[in-house]
């Protein structure tokens, strides 16, 4: 039954020779026609302090504090970090640990707020006129608002806006590809809030000081392409809206840059090295809100989808809303889901506890039925090469897997393990259903551990050697000192002896004289 809709995705003439990327069944129709709805304030808000890449934020509220909507509750710590704000007014009932929205389910530092239902705004950030503001002021405002990359990678946006200080930037690419199946939150946002997004794009362009702005949208979103083409100017910028092929992983930063500019980002370099910066459409929308209205990032659009979800929808939820409440808002489950995911089906994280909160990077809640998920039976590799053909990075996943299974981690690293994006194309396309991505995650972790142990051993050795050298130097100095002292003593003794001898010699004739005198 899952075979039929997939047949439509089979015909891609460009792929008769080589694939590069995959065409998973998009299944976006489940939620693509549902308008964004605003979910009411939930009964509980949980804000993990780590919702972004970089250092954990530092809580500045305590238990029993009353917080207002938009009030800063945790401050960015260090250069790569992000502020966290209270999404609604209420009382802080705990600053402690709660289960992470992550497959590990480990407890992470979390601020828990019980909303009072008033949803009362505190003082907002000062509004700005981006037309008159300097780039520094704009990125400071974005940093203050706690905005992170909302496509899922959650890199603090202000840090990326500040790249102009170090690189010659000329192009801003707005990523509206949304290549993950099922997800429609960016699509809906573009269709419904195009004007606001366009303004946000213009503001980011100004902050970066770029000349060109490109908005990239996958070809399967004709309405979004249409509306973004109409709202294509803001702040003296006219953006180009470019249609990119519907193919996973089109939204990968470096691949998007290559398809739009033809330039390939060197390994271990940034797209900024080519003068290009990529931001997500939802990030642009958040920037608009932060700069024009002084609103920090306290909500986001989440796609609720999957065949096990009763009413697939696009919901605007407050950051920190428990997943279970979002699902209940959408009518609960149609059937018990086989897997519950945060994010898309290709790279999303399965969660086991439904009370975990929505975080800034969570773009979807997918309740997948048994029919939608891969089976658990694994067959041996038949060397079909589909993983090699689909790998967007040009790796040989089956070979890396074989090496890792044989405990040859260095061999796997040598053939490119560290270049792997873990995009999941190989495991998606593997007919043997081999858990390739899981193996690569494992090997990367193991290599990192090995590296740190090696580093530690080297450090220990270096310190031990330094200490030995230091001790030797001290001993040598002592010995030198002793020798010097000894030499001095000897010189003294010699001098004394000589003196004594000279005195004796001087005394002798005198003695003889006296003797002679006595003899005569």
């Amino acid at each position: 039954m899952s075979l039929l809709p997939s047949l439509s995705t089979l015909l891609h003439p460009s792929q008769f020779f080589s694939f590069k990327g995959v065409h998973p069944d998009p299944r976006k129709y489940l939620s693509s026609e549902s308008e964004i709805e605003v979910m009411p304030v939930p009964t509980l808000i949980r804000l993990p302090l780590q919702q972004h890449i970089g250092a954990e934020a530092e809580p500045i509220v305590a238990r029993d504090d009353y917080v207002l909507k938009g009030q800063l509750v945790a401050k960015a710590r260090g250069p790569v970090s992000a502020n966290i704000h209270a999404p609604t007014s209420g009382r802080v009932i705990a600053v402690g640990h709660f289960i992470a929205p992550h497959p590990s389910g480990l407890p992470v530092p979390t601020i828990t707020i019980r909303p009072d239902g008033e949803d009362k705004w505190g003082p907002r950030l000062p509004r700005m006129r981006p037309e008159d503001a300097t780039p520094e002021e704009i990125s400071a405002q974005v940093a203050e608002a706690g905005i992170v990359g909302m496509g899922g990678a959650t890199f603090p946006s202000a840090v990326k806006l500040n790249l102009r200080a170090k690189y010659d930037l000329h192009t801003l690419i707005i990523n509206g590809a949304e290549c993950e199946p099922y997800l429609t939150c960016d699509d809906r946002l573009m269709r419904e809030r195009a004007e606001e997004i366009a303004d946000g794009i213009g503001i980011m362009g100004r902050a970066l000081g770029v000349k060109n702005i490109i908005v990239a949208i996958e070809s399967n979103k004709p309405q979004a392409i249409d509306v973004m083409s109409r709202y294509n100017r803001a702040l003296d910028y006219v953006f180009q809206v470019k249609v990119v092929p519907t193919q996973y992983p089109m939204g990968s930063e470096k691949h998007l840059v290559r398809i739009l500019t033809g330039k390939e980002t060197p390994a271990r370099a940034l797209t900024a090295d080519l003068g290009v910066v990529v931001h997500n459409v939802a990030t642009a929308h958040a920037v608009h809100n932060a700069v024009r209205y002084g609103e920090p990032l306290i909500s986001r659009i989440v796609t609720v989808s999957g065949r096990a979800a009763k009413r697939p929808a696009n919901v605007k939820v407050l950051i920190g809303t428990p997943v279970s409440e979002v699902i209940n808002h959408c009518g609960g489950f149609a059937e018990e889901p086989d897997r519950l995911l945060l994010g898309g089906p290709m790279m999303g994280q399965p969660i086991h506890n439904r009370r975990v909160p929505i975080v800034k990077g969570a773009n979807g809640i997918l309740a997948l039925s048994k029919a939608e998920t891969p089976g658990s039976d694994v067959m041996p590799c038949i060397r079909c090469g589909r993983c090699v053909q689909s790998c967007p990075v040009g790796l040989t996943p089956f070979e890396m897997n074989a090496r890792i299974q044989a405990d040859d981690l260095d061999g796997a690293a040598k053939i490119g393990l560290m270049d792997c994006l873990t995009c999941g194309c190989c495991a998606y396309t593997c007919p043997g259903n081999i858990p390739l991505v899981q193996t690569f995650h494992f090997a990367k972790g193991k290599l990192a551990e090995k590296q740190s142990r090696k580093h530690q051993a080297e450090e220990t050795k270096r310190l031990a050697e330094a200490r030995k050298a230091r001790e030797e130097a001290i001993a040598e100095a002592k010995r030198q000192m002793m020798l010097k002292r000894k030499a001095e003593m000897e010189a003294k003794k010699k001098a004394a002896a000589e003196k004594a001898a000279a005195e004796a010699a001087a005394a002798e004739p005198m003695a003889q004289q006296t003797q002679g005198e006595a003899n005569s």
Partner: protein
Amino acid sequence: MTAQPLLAAPHTHTVFTVNRTMLAVVLALTPATVFGLYQFGWPAIFLFITTVASAYLFEILSLWVAGKPIGPFARDGSALLSGWLVAMTLPPYAPWWVGVIGSGIAIVIAKHMFGGLGQNLFNPAMVARAMLLIALPVHMTTWVPPVGLFEGPGFVHSLAITFAGSSEYDAISSASTLSHIKSQLGAGASMGAITPDLADLKARLIGLVPGSMGETSTLLLLAGGLALVFMRIITLAIPLSVLGTIAGLSFIASTLAPDTFAPPILHLTAGSTMLCAFFIATDYVTSPVSALGKVIYGIGIGALIFVIRTWGSFPEGVAFAVLLMNSCTPLIETYVRPRVFGRTRTGKPLPIAKPKRTKQAAGDKA
């Protein structure tokens, strides 16, 4: 809450699992097979069933001996496909034990001795064909003309042909296109003199010529192969390079010396060229995985087929060509690797165009 197994992304999967892939290949082979069985009649049908069934039994036996789980592996369809391909390369009136030995060689020696599914170095069907060809040259080169199911020997008579070793069919034996050319050229005839004796192009395209059970119908094999390409089970890299090389070499040779070399169209439509290009050379396990590796492999097979057919002692060289290139696959695999994104072919990062002031880490995805 009980501990659940960690489920890793991706959480969606292609419809083509191992057994669906094998079944798709079998389906693509079906039109040519059904046509071949119809053309060669009951003896071919009996031999086909014997070969496929014995391949399946050998598979289960090998799995049992190796101590592997029989259920999932017996369902993977690979034994069905191997047995099927062995049967397609047998002469239609060969006795039943030739088919059984063939599938035994393919499954036990060529596949399970190397470690089973995915581990074999050589294409099982081609190992079987090559060994049978050398051990049983008479049985393996006795061809019969295709007369159709209803014109050929009857049901009971056919049972005798396949299972009782009745040798009456010698009387109706005829030469395949390639063996005819080989023997005539060897006898000193010129290509121009041989051509009128051969079946015409239309007969070779449709499959109205003597030959192995499943290799005669060029058009149906081509259609099945293209279906596999459309289903993205295989890419065009290997078929095009095999066919292109055979056509190119024979074009050059027959242009230079039209009397001693067969023209390209004859090479492409005779023997098991089409079967090899789309179904045998493209075997996953024994061919290289990268696109360039596939092209090199395909060119190697095409060139060897041409060389063996033209100068070798056998009229048909597909089995030997494929086996020889199978043995080159690990070598090709080692040296022909895809280029990694952002790196040169040697693995160094691409040079950065403009020198930059400082570096700072940034996220991979916006």
